[in-house]
């Protein structure tokens, strides 16, 4: 394991700063500081809006201050990790990082740089070939494009009305594939890490969920019947509720 003490990239060519979009739902009143803040991260091409749709308000409703970061345009993996760590460090208390899809990949790298209170990887797109294989089966044309596109079937289950699904799809811009090294850093500060996904996800296959969860020494928490976009699909409340239950348990165990 590398401790990453020598950071020539950061010392000699720091990531250029950008204005970052962060959407927040805060908790009012006395229990403002009772729970750690949660920082949600999507993959590039999506944005904070995807979490603002349901999960942010739901999370705040359960007493956790909730924030979502929109990835910068055209950044590489290093820039995205930088933005996540910058945003996390700007929060008043040690944050819980929650990444979805390629956002989970970014979070897994950010965990090597910032001691998160806990981390949740939702449908993590961290296995290049497994993800590619699953995508090409359902959506060969979209997958083979320079900027791969996902379709309705990959992202959502049949229970989500088609108009709603299409409206969400229209808001996604889809970005170029991120180049990333295979090595996943050990999380600093040893936070508990949870993997959440669906066995019916047509982007991240079940095997991949198992592999990522095993890397962090656990098993994935599964929500059958849901598509890749767990925060937008019908039944979005289940995965976030289960995640917050897990978090509450972990936080009580640690204190």
């Amino acid at each position, binding site marked *: *394991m590398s*401790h*990453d*003490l*020598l*950071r*020539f990239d*950061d*010392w*000699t*060519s*720091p*990531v250029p*700063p950008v204005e970052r979009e962060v959407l927040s739902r805060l908790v009012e009143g006395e229990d403002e500081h009772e729970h750690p803040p949660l920082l949600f991260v999507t993959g590039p091409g999506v944005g904070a809006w995807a979490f603002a749709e349901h999960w942010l308000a739901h999370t705040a409703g359960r007493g956790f201050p909730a924030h979502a970061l929109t990835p910068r345009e055209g950044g590489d993996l290093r820039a995205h990790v*930088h933005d996540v*760590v*910058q945003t996390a*460090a*700007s*929060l*008043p*208390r*040690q944050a819980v990082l929650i990444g979805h899809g390629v956002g989970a990949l970014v979070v897994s790298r950010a965990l090597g*740089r*910032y*001691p998160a209170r806990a981390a949740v990887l939702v449908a993590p797109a961290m296995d290049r070939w497994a993800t590619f294989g699953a995508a090409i089966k359902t959506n060969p044309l979209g997958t083979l494009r320079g900027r791969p596109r996902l379709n309705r079937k990959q992202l959502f289950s049949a229970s989500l009305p088609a108009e709603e699904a299409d409206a969400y799809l229209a808001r996604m811009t889809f970005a170029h594939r991120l180049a990333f090294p295979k090595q996943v850093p050990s999380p*600093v*500060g*040893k936070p508990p890490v949870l993997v959440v996904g669906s066995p019916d996800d047509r982007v991240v296959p079940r095997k991949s969920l198992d592999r990522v969860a095993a890397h962090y020494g656990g098993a994935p928490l599964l929500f059958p019947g849901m598509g890749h976009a767990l925060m937008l699909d019908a039944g979005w409340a289940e995965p976030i509720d289960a995640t917050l239950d897990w978090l509450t348990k972990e936080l009580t165990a640690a204190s």
Partner: protein
Amino acid sequence: MIIFRFWRTFCSLPPSPRIWQYRRVHDTPDIADRRDAVCVIGAGASGLATIKNLREHGFAVDCYERETSVGGAWNWRHDRSPVYANTHLISSRPLTEFPDFPMPDSWPDYPHHSQVLSYLERYAKHFGLGEHIWFGTEVVSAVPVGDGRWDVTTRSTGGGSSRVQRYAALIAANGHNWSPAKPDIPGDFRGTVIHSAQYKDPAQLRNRKVLVIGGGNTGCDIAVEAAQQATTVWHSTRRGYWYAPKYIFGRPADQVNDGLLKWRVPLKLRQWLYRRTLALTTGDLTRYGLPEPDHKPYESHPIVNSQLPYYLGHGRIKAVPDVARFAGGQVELADGRRIDPDLVITATGYAPRFEFLAPDLIDTEPDGRPDLHLHSFARKHPTLAVVGLLQPDAGLLPLAHWQSVAVARWLQLRREDPERAAAVQQKESARPIPSWSKRRVVASRRHWFEVDHLAYLKAMDELLREMEPAK
């Protein structure tokens, strides 16, 4: 403004009434056993990192801070803080921030001292460190009691009776820039003499005739401020230094320098490049009367100041040699010349002080210099370490962070796997000192703890790998 200041001061007070709690129990005669808890002395940058990293490794921590708030040297409200109104960092942001808690990337390349303080306050709040700190409490003495444990005597800063508690380990993060080292200048002087620690505001210099003694970064900073405020400015330096600009090729100079280190450019070539770059940018300073450097580049603590040569060139600063003695209303210089300042500022640095420890515990040499492994681990006491006692050629915070991680990992290994800990200790005792300590530096107290940040971090990396938990 007054209300705002009051609010700030108010909010920096400890949140819980711990001081009072402590006073109530002070008369317990027996020693309170804190079992596996670790005692940390000081809640400045190094102390805060130490608390956080010990907590991350599962240790209970009691930190004692004699002031009423965090920030140590960077907290301008503290009497012993060395910062003056215009103090800015001399190493750039990426080389100065904690590696796991970056400063906001919207901040300037060289932040102001008040930004550094707010950064440390946010760090403490972010990681919930305040609840482990006992403010307004001083450590009077720490004594080893065998089996690696320590009896720590504390007392409220305001006085009162003391209390003794027993800890599993003792980490001193008490800083080394708070006890002024004052020069011994013979003779009497009719004007005012102050140490740079007492210099806070440029108004102190306005319309005065100022002599600044000392060629370090503080001396150069004050000379520059005096050039903007005072009627006459003399800057006395004992030897010639390499005055590096803050920017080279439009980039912070330390970032450019680390580019050379990244490509492993050998020292000889780096020294040549350094001379060439300085010749092309700053130019020859001997024509202003400054002595030629008596050492090669990279052999002394870097002086980073772009404005000093500017004011030398404008005649606002007069370079003079060492001070020989005071003579009534005048000051006699080493070359026999006499000048007549009415304010003398001695920017002659600070001395490390560990009054709470018997000198032999940290192998203090006759000249007062502690001899510690990696400037951190006590050689004969495995549960005693010092964090932050370094003079790196970059920011201190990253090095203090990794020091405290190594200390935490070491204490953890010692607790969980004594056999492996012994093996690590054995191996570490064979680590050659030149591999982590700068050998070829100017022999002066200012350079006791001089380290090359890269060599030091490499040594830390190796040590951390040796202590890696077995998989």
